[in-house]
Structure formats: structure tokens, C-alpha cells
């Protein structure tokens, strides 16, 4: 599991970074936290752009410890900065191939033509001046440029935050595609929960320079002892696959171990993996299966934990199916009226499901 192991410390003015975590070798690990939590600093330390104390091992190789500090250009990483930062004096293609040309041919596992295809760059690759590209196009070139060094680890520092909503929507499908098709572990810094819920597999939570939690996305999002469970947009993530379509009503059934969900029609064949996000505020609880409800998704669940949240609300963590967690935010009065306690079997009514 511990493919990436980090313990880095740094003092920067009054800010102190002391971060320790490990991450699995596959998928996207999100470094999540509010601004000022040190997530970008931590990512820069991992890249070697900042010099921290401590140690860092990637795939068994020490990038940094007491005696060694591997310089940035020797670390087999790719880095996507918040702003695309294309070289203004180079053409779009020269930007894309800048790193590619600097690695030994034997180490080139990704080819420019592949990246152009993956990231839909065919129409802009011939442009001379990167300044003529839109923000989203620039960031796609920057992502392609980082991929073309065939990195063992891809570091992304809020690659979407400098973009407008439209450009974000334009890039997200490409990021998901990379996530699905490329076997490159990614460290993804973000303060946007929707991006994290959509892209991440593993979550590292940062607060004031310290790692307060690290674990699989679904489990960590559902931990009531962490601040994210109490955000307004708190919710659970369910990994499911397309099972069948109801053509007449234009719906699709998603299966996950031990349960299923009906959602609006998904244009994919059976077996396609999708990720569904269910917000805590969209889940209500009934002690017995409701009769005559308009709600399509009523899941059998077992209450695991209930926590007070302010004077009027509580948040409930439930297990559905074999391993998935669901959160529900209800009033304290409902909890008392229904007599909800941990261990009870209930029906979770899901008002809305967002597909990622």
C-alpha cells in the first residue's frame, strides 16, 4: 500500500508544516484543505521545489532523507501548476515536447501523438504562440507537457482553480479519462470538494500544516469526526457500475455491492464504472419502508453513528450494502421522534444523486 511515504517538516514564517502520510500506488490521492492549510507548500516540498526537513520515499526510492536531497530535475515526476505557465517564447508543440526531449528515448512510455489524442490538442498543436490559446487549452497543453516526461508520479496543484466554470467543465472529462486510462499515480491538490469527490480515490486532509486524516475517499468522507462531514456540501461517494437501462422512463440502474440506485439515463453500456455523489442534505430517514413515495431510491441501511451538529441538526452515518457509507443530515427532533440510535436498521430515502 505505501507506495508513497512522506514525512516533511518546514517552518515558513509563522506557518509550520508537519505532514506525514502515505498513499497507494494507483489512482488519485487528493490533498484537501482550506487555503492556508499548507497543501500547495506540501506538494512543492514533495516536488523538491521547496526544501523541507524530513524524508520522502517514492516507489522504494528515497527522494529525500537526512543525507540526500534529489534535485527537482532528477525526480521522475510531472508537475501541473495552478496557472498553465507555458513558455511564452516557445510554440505550442515545443512547449508540449520540452520535457519529452529531455528524457532518454528508452524511458519514453508516453508519445506526443498519444497525448495530443487524449487531451484533444490536435486543433491547437500547430499554433505558434501559446498566448493565443484559451485558459482551458493552455492548461491542457500544460497537463500534456507534464505527462510527456512519462512521470512515475504526477503532481497537480489546483489545475482547475484559475479557470472559469466553462473551462473547468471542458477539462474535467480529460482528467477523468486520464484517471481511467493512465496507470500514473496522481497527487491532486484542491480545495473544491466537488473536484475531489469526482476525481480522488484516496483523501489526505490537511489543516494548519498537519495531516488530520488519510484514507480511502468513501470512508474518509463519511468520518463524522472530521470537519468535512460537517460542511454544507458533505456527502458520500458510491462507486457503482451501469447495470441496465429503463428505456421507457429514460432511467439507468447502477449497481454497487449490496444495493442499487436509479439515476437519469447514462449513455454507457453495462459494466461502465461511474461514481455517484449523494449529499447528506438529500438523504432522509424512515424507520419503515414508506408507502406511496415519489422517491425512486430507498436503500436499506444500518445506522453506524449519530453526531450533533449545531443546536437543531444531527448528522447520521449509515452503512448501505456491503461496504458503502451514506450520510444524512436531519433535525434533532426527527432523531428523537424516530428514536434513532446506532445499530438500528432504517430506510434511507435518497432524493437526488449526482453522477460524477
Amino acid at each position: 500500500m505505501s507506495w508513497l511515504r512522506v514525512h516533511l517538516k518546514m517552518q515558513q514564517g509563522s506557518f509550520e508544516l508537519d505532514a506525514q502520510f502515505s498513499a497507494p500506488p494507483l489512482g488519485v490521492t487528493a490533498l484537501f484543505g482550506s487555503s492556508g492549510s499548507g497543501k500547495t507548500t506540501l506538494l512543492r516540498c514533495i516536488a523538491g521545489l521547496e526544501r523541507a526537513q524530513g524524508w520522502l520515499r517514492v516507489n522504494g526510492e528515497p527522494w529525500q532523507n537526512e543525507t540526500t536531497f534529489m534535485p527537482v530535475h532528477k525526480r521522475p515526476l510531472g508537475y501541473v501548476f495552478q496557472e498553465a505557465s507555458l513558455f511564452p517564447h516557445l510554440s505550442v508543440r515545443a512547449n508540449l515536447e520540452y520535457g519529452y526531449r529531455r528524457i532518454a528515448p528508452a524511458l519514453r512510455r508516453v508519445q506526443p501523438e498519444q497525448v495530443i489524442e487524449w487531451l484533444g490538442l490536435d486543433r491547437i498543436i500547430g499554433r505558434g504562440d501559446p498566448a493565443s490559446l484559451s485558459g482551458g487549452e493552455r492548461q491542457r497543453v500544460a497537463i500534456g507537457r507534464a505527462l510527456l516526461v512519462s512521470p512515475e508520479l504526477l503532481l497537480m496543484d489546483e489545475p482547475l482553480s484559475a479557470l472559469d466554470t466553462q473551462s473547468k467543465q471542458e477539462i474535467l472529462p480529460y482528467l477523468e479519462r486520464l484517471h481511467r486510462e493512465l496507470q500514473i499515480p496522481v497527487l491532486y491538490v484542491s480545495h473544491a470538494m466537488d473536484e475531489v469527490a469526482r476525481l480522488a480515490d484516496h483523501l489526505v486532509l490537511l489543516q494548519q500544516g498537519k495531516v488530520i486524516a488519510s484514507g480511502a475517499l468513501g470512508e474518509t468522507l463519511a468520518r463524522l469526526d472530521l470537519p468535512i462531514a460537517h460542511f454544507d456540501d458533505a456527502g458520500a461517494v458510491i462507486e457503482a457500475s451501469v447495470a441496465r437501462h429503463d428505456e421507457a422512463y429514460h432511467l439507468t440502474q447502477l449497481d454497487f455491492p449490496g444495493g442499487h440506485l436509479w439515476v437519469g439515463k447514462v449513455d454507457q453500456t453495462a459494466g461502465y464504472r461511474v461514481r455517484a455523489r449523494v449529499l447528506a442534505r438529500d438523504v432522509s430517514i424512515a424507520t419503515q419502508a414508506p408507502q406511496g413515495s415519489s422517491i425512486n431510491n430507498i436503500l436499506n441501511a444500518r445506522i453506524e453513528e449519530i453526531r450533533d451538529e449545531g443546536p437543531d441538526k444531527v448528522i447520521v452515518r449509515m452503512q448501505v450494502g456491503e461496504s458503502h457509507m451514506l450520510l444524512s443530515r436531519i433535525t434533532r427532533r426527527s432523531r428523537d421522534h424516530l428514536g434513532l440510535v446506532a445499530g438500528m436498521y432504517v430506510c434511507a430515502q435518497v432524493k437526488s444523486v449526482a453522477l460524477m
Partner: protein
Amino acid sequence: MTPEDLQAVTLTLKLASLTTLVLLCIATPLAWWLAHSRSWYKGLVSALVALPLVLPPTVLGFYLLLLMGPQGAVGELTRALGIGALPFTFAGLVVGSVLFSLPFAVQPIQNAFEAMGKRPLEVAATLRATPWDRFISVALPLARPGFLTAIILAFAHTVGEFGVVLMLGGSIPGETQVLSVAIYTHVEAMEYSEAHWLSGGMVLFSFLVLVGLYRVGGNWSKGAR
């Protein structure tokens, strides 16, 4: 124009070209260090580099004369090395010109390095470029306007200098008698028409250089893009 005047013109161009070349070699690393260093004596070095901007050229020339003279520290060194004394030689003029024009070469390049920021170099580092590679493939091209400004200013400033040259080189035709000194000599000898030719040429040259400069860099105090 007399053959002596022509000699003064070629000598001036030779001095300015050589000075600019030497300045580029010295100013580039110095500007890089000044743009990136955070050490406490950076301010000290900046002040030293800028000193020729405010000093009367005669003061600089006077001290250089003492320093490079037979009794000076540099003079003793050059004598020990078998080069002989530098004052009143072409080599001495080059040394003086380089020091005198140093801020005009360092500052535009330093500004250009500072204006590009750390980001392009960091990006290049994450794309496997070694420090030297980053300098050649990223820093130099991005600082190009600063370099052009530095070259033009250093060259033009050397062509126009008078005080340092006179103090350090005197007026030896073919060795140290540059244009400005030649004009001065003409005026002293009441040869106004010769002085007019050379002075008018200088006015035209300086004007053309400045026109070129504003086309290239816009504002030389910014140096970068």
C-alpha cells in the same frame, strides 16, 4: 575628416565593441546573482555596481589611475604578471570603460531576470531541465529584451564617455584618443569645423541608438518585456 579623426572613430568603435563584450560576460552572472540572491550583502553589491551612475567620471578615472599606476595595487600586479602598466594604454581604457558602464549592462539584465520570476525556471526543472539547461533554454530567451537593451546602452555609453578616458588614457592617437577626446582636442586648437563634423556625427549616432532602443525595449528602466 583627417586620418587622425578616422583613427579616433575606429578606435572608439573598437573600444565600445570590446567593452560591450567584456561587460556581457561580467554582467550576466552578476545580474543573475543579484536577481536571485537573498544574502545581506546584495544591497552592498548593488550599490557598488550603481556607483558609476552618480560619481563624476573624473573621480572614477582618478582612482583607477592611482590603482593601476606603478604604485597602485593593480599596477604592481600587472607588472608582476609582465603586462606592464595599464594607464595610457588601450587595455587600460577597456578596464575603465567596463567599470564605468557596468550599471548600464547589469541593471536591464537584472530587471529582465527579476521580471520573469521563478515560475518558468521551476516549470523547466519539473520537465527534467538541468540548471544550466534551464538558464540556456528558458532564462536567456525570456531575458532577451533586457540583453538587447544592455548591449545597446553599454555600447552607446562607452562611445560617449569622456572623463574616465581622459583621466586614464590621455590623448594618444591610435592608442587612447577616442572620439570625445578628439573633439575636445579640436576645440582646444580652435579647429571648429573638424569639431563640428565629429560632434554632429555623435549627435546623429546617439539619436539613432536611442530610436533603436525605444523600438526594442520600450522602456530601458524596465528592461524586460
